[in-house]
């Protein structure tokens, strides 16, 4: 379970203080699929970065499974990212020098696990996202949709507590986007917690719950399962 309590994030632009997030509180249950929506500059990526431990809040508290990720050292935060969080980015962020299976293995390689012990799991994950025949290809040899599938497999390799997806379909065509979102939905159905940031309402509808942000504050929180029911 992820808990966000009274979190604010401010930036300084000269003398001026700008609120990217303003006193946000939020609870994300295990196995939830939360879609965060909002216009550009509303603070959705900032919120995702804070939940993922890529950034620290100016005020407030954030917990993952009761473990605080605010006010801790950079090393502790990094280890939480490594073991508890899986990231999927809009621009994939794969290492161009590594092939698909190596990119998928990267989080465990960082944890010191020998490649020989990861390889099988990485290949299995690539097969599960439909890339069993592309394991040795480097990112430049893959299409956008394939690169995002590799990123999904990479996010799953550590069996994370949560997958954070920041506009994962923002760089893909509609057909491929649906495939990727379908993959995420399937993952969620196996019990994986997912937080998706998007400005596309169609993409957001793949989740179980949607929150809307505007000027750093939550303006709407809808449970889709309830509304569908």
């Amino acid at each position: 379970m992820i808990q966000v309590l009274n979190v604010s994030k401010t930036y300084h632009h000269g003398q001026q203080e700008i609120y990217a997030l303003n006193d946000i509180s939020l609870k994300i249950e295990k196995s939830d699929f939360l879609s965060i929506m909002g216009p550009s500059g509303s603070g959705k990526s900032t919120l995702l970065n804070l939940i993922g431990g890529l950034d620290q809040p100016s005020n407030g508290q954030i917990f993952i499974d009761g473990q605080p990720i605010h006010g801790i050292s950079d090393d502790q935060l990094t280890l939480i990212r490594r073991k508890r969080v899986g990231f999927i980015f809009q621009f994939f962020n794969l290492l161009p020098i590594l092939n698909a299976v190596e990119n998928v293995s990267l989080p465990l390689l960082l944890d010191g696990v020998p490649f020989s012990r990861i390889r099988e799991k990485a290949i299995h994950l690539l097969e599960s996202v439909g890339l069993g025949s592309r394991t040795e290809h480097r990112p430049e040899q893959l299409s956008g949709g394939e690169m995002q599938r590799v990123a999904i497999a990479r996010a799953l390799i550590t069996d994370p507590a949560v997958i954070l997806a920041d506009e994962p379909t923002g760089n893909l065509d509609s057909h491929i986007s649906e495939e990727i979102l379908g993959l995420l939905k399937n993952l969620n159905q196996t019990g994986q917690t997912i937080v998706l940031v998007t400005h596309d309402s169609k993409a957001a509808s793949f989740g179980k719950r949607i929150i809307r942000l505007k000027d750093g504050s939550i303006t709407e929180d809808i449970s889709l399962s309830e509304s569908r029911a």
Partner: protein
Amino acid sequence: MNLWNLLRHITMKHFRLRKAQIFMAAAGICLGVTSIVSFGVVNKSILFSFEDSFNRVTGKAKLQITAAQSGFPESLLEKVQEIRGVEYAVPVIETDGMLVSGKERSIMILGVDVLVDTKIREYSLSGDSVDVPDPLLFLAKSDSILVTKTMADREGFIIDQKIQVQTVEGIKTLCIRGILNPEGPAKAMGGNLAIMDIYAAQMAFGKNGRIDRIDVSPRQGENLETVRQAILNVLPNGYMVDTPAGRTRQVEDMISRFQNDLNLVSYLAIFAGMYLIYNAVSISVVNRRREIGILRALGCLRRNIMLLFLGETLVISIIASSIGVGLGLLLANYLVGTFGKVISETYMRTSVSGIHITWLYPILGFASGIIASLMAALFPARASSLISPVSAIRSVPYTEESFFTARRLNLGGVFCLVLSGAIFAMYNFISDSHLTNMILLPIAQLMIAIGISLFIPAFLKWFVTIFNRFFSSMFGSAGRIAGLNLRKNLTRNAVAVSAVFFGIAVFVASAGYTHSVKESVLKWLDSMIIGDIVISSGHPGSSANAHSIPMPVDLSQQLKKVPGVLSVEPWRRVFLQYKGRRVLVSAASLARYSKYSSADTKQVVKNNKIRLLPDKDNVVVSEPFAAIFKVKKGDQITLPTPAGPVVFSVAGIVVDYTSDSGVIAMDINTYQRHWGDMLCNSFFLLVKPGAKVNDVRDEIQRQFGSDRKLYVLSALEFKNEIRKIMDDIFIFNYALNVITLTIACLGIIVALLASVLERTREIGTLRAIGMLRRQIYGVVVLESILMGLAGGILGSLAGMFAGWVNLEGFFIPNYGSAARYYLPFSAILWALFLSAGLSALAGMIPAQKAAKTNIVEALSYD
């Protein structure tokens, strides 16, 4: 473990993809290690060769008695032989001769008492010499000479062959009575050695009644120090009684300044290598920001990012240092002959046939390469760990997000420069030359380089402002966009500018130091060489006398009779022992010295005209002599003469570069009066007005050429010979200039290539909004030129400063000689030309590529 995974899966892939950059970084360190290993091994080999030759020539002697090079009375031999603890004391003449035929090789001639010398040295004659088993036969014929088998094989000599040898008495015909097997003394000096009877050697080399050395073997069980003291007690002051090991130490001390010079070259080379590593890692960090961001986002610790870059550097430095050690040994093998020649010409005779490898220098070079690389990589590696994952993975432009704000950079620059000044000010208060030369000087230079480099962003800002205001309009829209682009990314561009800066700074510093030392010596030489013709009987420029055979002073009377000769002045150069060190006595006519010498020498001589009259015991000493022995004007020094110690007054201190061991200059009459030595090494001739120098020279050769081998040179030719020796001495400094310039050139190209490639997306945007291909080309090339020029200008300034520090902080304390700093104008012009020209070249290839790039591809470039 996770670091190992990073190195294995990421580093190795980068190595394969960035071969050129890796090669560049490795090449810099490799060159540095190569120079440390090669110079170290060559130095060690020369010392080993000295030691080996000493030991072979010394034989069983445990002590050696020596004095001035002109020799001492043989009557002292009996006194030594009478000492109770002495078993054998044998006389030796050790002098130089020259084979007149063939390649006119210089050889060492040992004059020994063949009846007793075998008690000290063992001679083994080859089978061809069995017809001369009787030493008395050898004695009976004064033209007898024994040569080594090495020499006989090389020159094609056989028993009973008559050979011509240049001696003090002129060309002498000697008969080979035996050939020595390559054992014992016959292996000394690479076999360039011949044995004569001591009496014959005395006659031939102008040492009647004198000997050069007494080799002593104490009785068994006698304490060596007791015997040494007993010998010292019977000898007049000023004689040296030392063990062979002690004499080797003297040699080590004598050439230590030369070695320091080479060490400086080595450290500058490794410094240049450090800059390449710094540059390569900095560029790598900038280019791999996104990768670092991804790794950080996926859970890589800050310290592991830093260790990743340090680990990459470690791998590169291990490979580069290993290759450097191998190349160093190869280079040492190649250079050892040239070094031996330089040492022979400027210090004392040596014959180095090959390298002598000890583990010290390969290990030192290897360790220096690795430590220097890691130190150089530390700053950029630390900067890599501070990169924020959010900004890196979002591809936001590279901004000054680090600790190093413009104000802090400027303050850091000022701090480094002040620290450098403080270290420099401390210089005169520290007497430990190793501490000053090996530690403080490199630190002071490093501080200058780092200090000035910290001003690069500020300087670049100023430079671009000037360009924008006054010059950009001259280049149209390309000029305006180039100016804006440069200003926009000051930190990123500063990395490329610093690449140019460091390379140019090391090049200009090295060139300035070499140029200043050389110009100082040549200007001194111009004031010293007075005369139209210089005559010597051996290598004309040899200050160590190793290749110069003295001539009788009387020859001047005959020379004066040659038509067209106005005056003839003899010059004697001879080494003697003063307070346990070898110093050079330079004796010439002071009247002439006063009349034609340089202004400062003239002033000293003029002020002390009366006291310096030939019948007074006055001398002037060189600056190194005054520095080494802490002597001031008006002090008294006691010099050993064959008749016993004589007190001389120091009438002045003068600039004299003849020998860095120290020079004592005196009137030649004073020298002859005390040393009774009627020889000289050179004659300086003035020709009568109207007479042609070449005609006089030809006439001298015609009249004297058949009696002795003479080098008759015009003053200009003589100076050119000296220039050749100086070029040999500075060959390693020139090599360093080439190395640093090469590194600078490669650094410029790689840094700017990386800078332009990184901006592919930006270039695509410019094309998309309507910029013409030729405009893109112009912008990229112009930016490259501007960055190159900024680095070149700042690098030249830093180089001038660092070169001056080298001269003031290293040369002057090390050699004790005054030298003036001369700006290396040609090197600076080259530096500016190359920094602008190469930057233009470096920009052209990527500019062409950028201009041709598909706009869509460029915009999606990741």
